[in-house]
C-alpha cells in the first residue's frame, strides 16, 4: 500500500460531493469509482483469498477468488514458523518498532528544526534552511554506501539503532512544518512575549497544540513510509533479530517451485494489518490535517 493511494482513497468522497447536481449522469461517476475500487482492491482480495487455501491449490496455478478452508492452519504456520526461519510475529514486531521510531523521530526532529528556522534569528539561518532543503533532492540510494560505511564503523549493523537512525531526519517534514509555522500570525508570538512565555513555553503551549492535525497526518504518512522501507533494511539488517516483515516476505519467496504461496499470502495479509490499523485509527485527524488548518 503506498501513501498516495491512501490519500486519494480518503479524499475522494469529499471532492465528489459538490458535483452531485451537475448535468453528468450519476452512473458515469459510479462506473469510474467502481473501476478504481476494482483496480486497487482486486490484488488485495486475491491475496486474502489465497491465504485461505492449501499450498497445492495455488501450486496448480489456480487463482482462487473464493475463500478456502485452510485459513487457520495457514496463519498459524506463518505466525509460528514464518518463512526463512524467522517467525512472522518477530518480524512484525521489528517492523513496528522501526516504523514507529521513524515516524515519531522524524516528526520530533523536523518540528524542532522548523521551529528554529521560522521563529529564531541566528547566524547562518538561511544557510541552515537551504542545506535542509537541498537534501530533499538527494534520494536515499545516492548516499546509501557512505551511510552504510558509517553505520558499520560505528558497529550498528544488525541493531535497531542502525536500522532507524540513518533515515530519521526528514527534509520533507521539516519543510511542511516550516510552511505551517509561517502561517502562525506574528501576533501570537508577540502576545506570548507579553504574557511572559519563553521559547520553550511558546513551543509547548501554542505551537505544538496548533500542529496537532499536521502531526497526525504526517504520522500516518511516515509510519507507512517506515513500514515499507526496503533497501536500507536489506543492507543493514541481515540477522533474524532485526529482520523486518518486508524483507522477510521477499526472502520467503525462494524459487518458484518450493515456495509456500499460501503462507506467503498469509504473511502478506498480516503485514498489511498494522499500517491499515494506523490509517483507520488516525483517519479523522489525518483527513483534517490534509484538508484544513486549525487557525
Amino acid at each position: 500500500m503506498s501513501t498516495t493511494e491512501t490519500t486519494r482513497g480518503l479524499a475522494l468522497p469529499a471532492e465528489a460531493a459538490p458535483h452531485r447536481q451537475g448535468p453528468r449522469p450519476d452512473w458515469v461517476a459510479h462506473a469510474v469509482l467502481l473501476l478504481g475500487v476494482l483496480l486497487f482492491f482486486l490484488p488485495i482480495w486475491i491475496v486474502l483469498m489465497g491465504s485461505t487455501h492449501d499450498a497445492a491449490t495455488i501450486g496448480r496455478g489456480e487463482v482462487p477468488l473464493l475463500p478456502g478452508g485452510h485459513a487457520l492452519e495457514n496463519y498459524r504456520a506463518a505466525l509460528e514458523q514464518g518463512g526463512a526461519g524467522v517467525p512472522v510475529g518477530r518480524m512484525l514486531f521489528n517492523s513496528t518498532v522501526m516504523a514507529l521510531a521513524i515516524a515519531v523521530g522524524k516528526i520530533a526532529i523536523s518540528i524542532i528544526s522548523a521551529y528554529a528556522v521560522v521563529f529564531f534569528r541566528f547566524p547562518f539561518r538561511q544557510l541552515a534552511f537551504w542545506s535542509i532543503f537541498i537534501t530533499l533532492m538527494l534520494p536515499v540510494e545516492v548516499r546509501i554506501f557512505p551511510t552504510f560505511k558509517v553505520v558499520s564503523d560505528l558497529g550498528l549493523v544488525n541493531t535497531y539503532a542502525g536500522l532507524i537512525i540513518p533515515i530519521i531526519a526528514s527534509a520533507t517534514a521539516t519543510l511542511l512544518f516550516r510552511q505551517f509555522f509561517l502561517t502562525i500570525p506574528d501576533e501570537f508570538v508577540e502576545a506570548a512575549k507579553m504574557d511572559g512565555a519563553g521559547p520553550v513555553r511558546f513551543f509547548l503551549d501554542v505551537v505544538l497544540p496548533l500542529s496537532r492535525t499536521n502531526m497526525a497526518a504526517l504520522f500516518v504518512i511516515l509510519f507507512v513510509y517506515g513500514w515499507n522501507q526496503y533497501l536500507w533494511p536489506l543492507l543493514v539488517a541481515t540477522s533474524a533479530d532485526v529482520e523486518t516483515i518486508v524483507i522477510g516476505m521477499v526472502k520467503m519467496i525462494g524459487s518458484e517451485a518450493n515456495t509456500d504461496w499460501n503462507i506467503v499470502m498469509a504473511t502478506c495479509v498480516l503485514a498489511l494489518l498494522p499500517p491499515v490499523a494506523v490509517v483507520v485509527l488516525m483517519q479523522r485527524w489525518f483527513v483534517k490535517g490534509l484538508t484544513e488548518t486549525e487557525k
Partner: protein
Amino acid sequence: MATLDLSGVQKAFGATRVLHGVDLAVADGEMIVIVGASGCGKSTLLRIVAGLETPTAGSVRIGGRDVTALEPADRDIAMVFQNYALYPHMSVAQNMGYGLKIRGLPRPEIDRRVRDAAALLGIEALLDRRPRQLSGGQRQRVAMGRAIVREPKLFLFDEPLSNLDAKLRVQMRAEIRRLQKRLGVTSLFVTHDQIEAMTLGDRLVVMHQGHAAQVATPMEIFERPADTYVAGFIGSPAMNFLEGVLAGGGRAVALRAGPTIPFADGPRPGPDGLPLTIGLRPEHLRLEAGGLPLAIDLAEPLGSETVLHGRLPDGEALVIRLAGPAPRDGTLPVTLPAEHLHVFVAEGGRRLDPAPA
C-alpha cells in the same frame, strides 16, 4: 497605575528612519490616543513602549523606572492587538488566564481574576468557548479581558476596533472609554481614525512622518492646530486652505482670492509680504450677500447638513458645510469670517499666533 515618559525615541529599520525623536509625558490614569495616517510610525512607537521593538535612541520610562532594556513581560503592561491574537486552541478562560499562569499565580487567584474581568465585560457565559465560536465583538471583549486580568500599569491598544463593523465600533469605543475611566489605568491607544481619536483621548498625539506634530487635548487640536498637517488631518470635511500674504504691518492678510481680511485676535509678527496659508473650517463659512462669488461644482446633501464644493474666482477650491438644505448649484456669495481664521506660515506650515502684547 503609572506615568509614562518617552524621551527622544528614535527608530530606524536599517536605513529607513521611521521615528525621528518622539517626546511624550503621560500622566497617571491618562488616556492618550496616537493618531496619524497609515505608515507614520504609530504602531512602531507603541511596540517600542511594549518592548516588542528596541528604540535606536531614546528611552522609555514607566512609573519613573527606565524600562528601555527590559523584556515585554517584565514591563508590567498589557496589549490589545488588532486581530486580538487569541490562541485558537484555548478556551476564553484559558486565554485570559494564560499570562497569569506563566507568572505562577495560584489557580484560585487566576480563576477569581478571570471571573471578575469576565463579569466586568459581560462575557461570563462565554468562558468555556473557543475563540472561533465567538463573534467579532465578543473576541474584542475577550482580548480586553486578557489585558485587564493582568492588572497592568499600562494598557496598549493597536487599532483594536478596526476589524469591527461601523456600529459595533462606536459601541466598543464607548465601552473601552468607560472601562478605562473606571479602572483608571494609564493607556496608549493607536488609531488612524480621527473620530475615534477625538472621542477617546484625554490628549492626542498627532503623528506625521515619524514626528509628533502636536500633543494636546482634542479641543485644543481642533481649535488651535499646530501646523497645516494637523489642521488638515483633524476635522471633517477637512479644513480649507487659502493662499495669502501678511499685510498692513502684520494686522491683516491679503488673500490671493481678492479680499484683505484684518486679524480679529491681533497683529502677527513678520514682514509684510510674508507668504501665509490661511485655514478656514467648512462649518465657519457662511453664505451672505456681498461675499466672494463661489462657483459650486458639487453639493452633498447629508440630511441635517449640506456640504458644498466650489471654486473661488482665482481657482482655489473651497468646501462649505451648511446646516439644513442649501442651493445645489450656481454661483453663491461666501463670506470668510475674520474671527475663525487660522494663520500658518506658508513655508513649513507652522501656526503663526499673534505676538504677545
